[in-house]
């Protein structure tokens, strides 16, 4: 029996994708490893200070300010980004991989939330994540869009991100 770590469904041995939620079952034992936050900090990629100005691209409609590590990720080139964490053997990749920013330790799901720009507003939707998505401390209902304002603090699990909106 293989228990899906995403939805706890019991799958038959030899199954490769969860029959209930469609998550890939192989390589799931990776999620039970314990890795200390310190290792993550030391393995953080060195980022050139000049390369991440808040609104570098002229077309950026907003930015994600990662409060724990200080990086700012501009949102540009498209109107919608999925946020999550890339793990080995995963067929489905988030648009923005937060794993360099302690996403794992912060309890970010592989596909955690989606942020998009629509009709002049910025919307956030939780994608049924394990540890939830919060706006200014208030938990979102899964699969329901919620508007964001400049300066809002979003938490994906414990990973805190400040939303910077270009006016």
């Amino acid at each position: 029996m293989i228990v899906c770590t995403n939805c706890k469904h019991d799958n038959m041995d030899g199954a490769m994708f969860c029959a209930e939620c469609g998550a890939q079952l192989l390589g799931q034992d990776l999620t039970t490893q314990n890795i200390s936050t310190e290792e993550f900090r030391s393995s953080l990629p060195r980022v050139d200070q000049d390369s991440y100005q808040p609104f570098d691209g002229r077309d950026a409609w907003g930015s994600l300010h990662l409060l724990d590590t200080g990086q700012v990720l501009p949102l540009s080139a498209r109107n919608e980004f999925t946020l999550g964490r890339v793990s080995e053997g995963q067929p489905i990749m988030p648009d923005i991989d937060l794993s360099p920013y302690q996403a794992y330790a912060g309890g970010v799901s592989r596909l955690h939330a989606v942020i998009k720009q629509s009709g002049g507003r910025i919307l956030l939707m939780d994608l049924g994540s394990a540890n939830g998505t919060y706006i200014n401390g208030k938990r979102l209902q899964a699969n329901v869009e919620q508007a964001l304002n400049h300066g809002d603090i979003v938490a994906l699990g414990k990973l805190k991100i400040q939303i910077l909106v270009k006016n």
Partner: protein
Amino acid sequence: MGLNKPDHYQILGILRDASQEDIKRAYFEAAQRLHPDKNVAAGETEIFLDIQQAYEVLSNPRRKTMYDATLPPEIETHGVVKHEFILSRPNLVKLAEPQLVYGLLEIGSREGPDKIPAPPLNICLVLDRSTSMQGEKMDMVKAAATQLIRSLRPQDVFSVVAFSDKAEVIIPAAINWEMKKQEARIQFMQTSGATEIFQGLDAGLQEVCRSLNPSRVNHIILLTDGHTYGDEQACLQLADSAARQNIGITGLGVGNEWNDIFLDALASRTGGSSVYISKPKDIQRILVDKFNALASTFADDVILEYKVQKHVRINYAFRLQPEGGTVQLENPMHLGPISREVPLHFLIEFVVDPSALEQDHVTLLDGALKISVAALPTPVPPIRLRIVCDVDAKPSSEPPPTRILSALSKLTLYRMQERARTAADEGQYSSAARHLQNLATHLLSQGQNSLAKTALMEADNIERMHAFSASGNKDIKYSTRALLLSAPKEKAR
């Protein structure tokens, strides 16, 4: 078959090294399918007599030896077709519970598309002309049929049947056609009456049978926009009879009112598939595409005949390409066509019972593939498919083959849609909605935003109204099926 009459082995669909037991089995199976007491379809009695004659010779060891001596050397199996079968894991694990193993069969033409002559066609277009087809739908159908007539090659046989509650042959099957007259007959088609698919299918089958020839691609294209009532079972029997004569069926459904489950069942019995046409303006394009696909057929159908294994069950089977579609879990299985450009990819899910694991290897599949290549005068000898998997105490650490993994990752989306529908049919609405929400999450992450939105809307419909919307379930079904064929979208980063 012309001058090259198939030999006794080919008639029974067995290899020359077949044991007496194999010969007997092949004979009984063929006899069961074709016994004159059971079947009255045209041509089947003759096939049955051939089979009986073949069996009489081969079942007698002395006569078999004499017959074998007269045979020319066996045509090499690897002549025109190449195939490969891979398993999701190298060994089964000794467990006290059932376990899954996946197999992927790839089978295609050995030669490039330019080396094989394009086979002539024998196609009947069976058109629904019930009242509901009135207006844009019928106009588009007429335009499409006219275009098809103009695109025919001199060697192609083409016929058109229109049906409502009765059928009418608009263009009888023939090669020597008068184009102008035929176009006029198409233009005169009027809509009236109800949809009775059996009427149309029966007349269409008769037209195709008139020019039935194994060297042609024999096919019925059924286009409908409505439900048929009460004659479903008769239609399915007709499809089985078509399959035995190597006639394929494609079902094209226009709009929201037709029954996709039924049309899928009908087409898949012959190795064909169904196509969803959401808007009438797409009728012409899809019909022409289908025609072109038929014209580039390498083999009409690949048939898998297998021995039922005691402790191994085939749980699911799906054709990934050239056209994605369900495969009926029957024996024999119609896996579908091989295109000249695109090989057939077929995925199969086995459930292995713990009782099978007492031995150190398990036979997952023991059978033969029969392939009818239209462009070749001689039948292709069957390909033996015997898949044996070792049993080990521990699971292998080897990662699964990427081809199976990527095929399954896409098929998973289609199956989630299927599960949602099954759950909704059983009245488990919250489970159906959850499946759709999960599906939406996966679709979103693959950049299929509008489809994800449709899935979420349908989840909402099911939770609130306990039903799919009119178009939603078909949209999701055929779009997730189409995803199987497309290359994965580039990751945007």
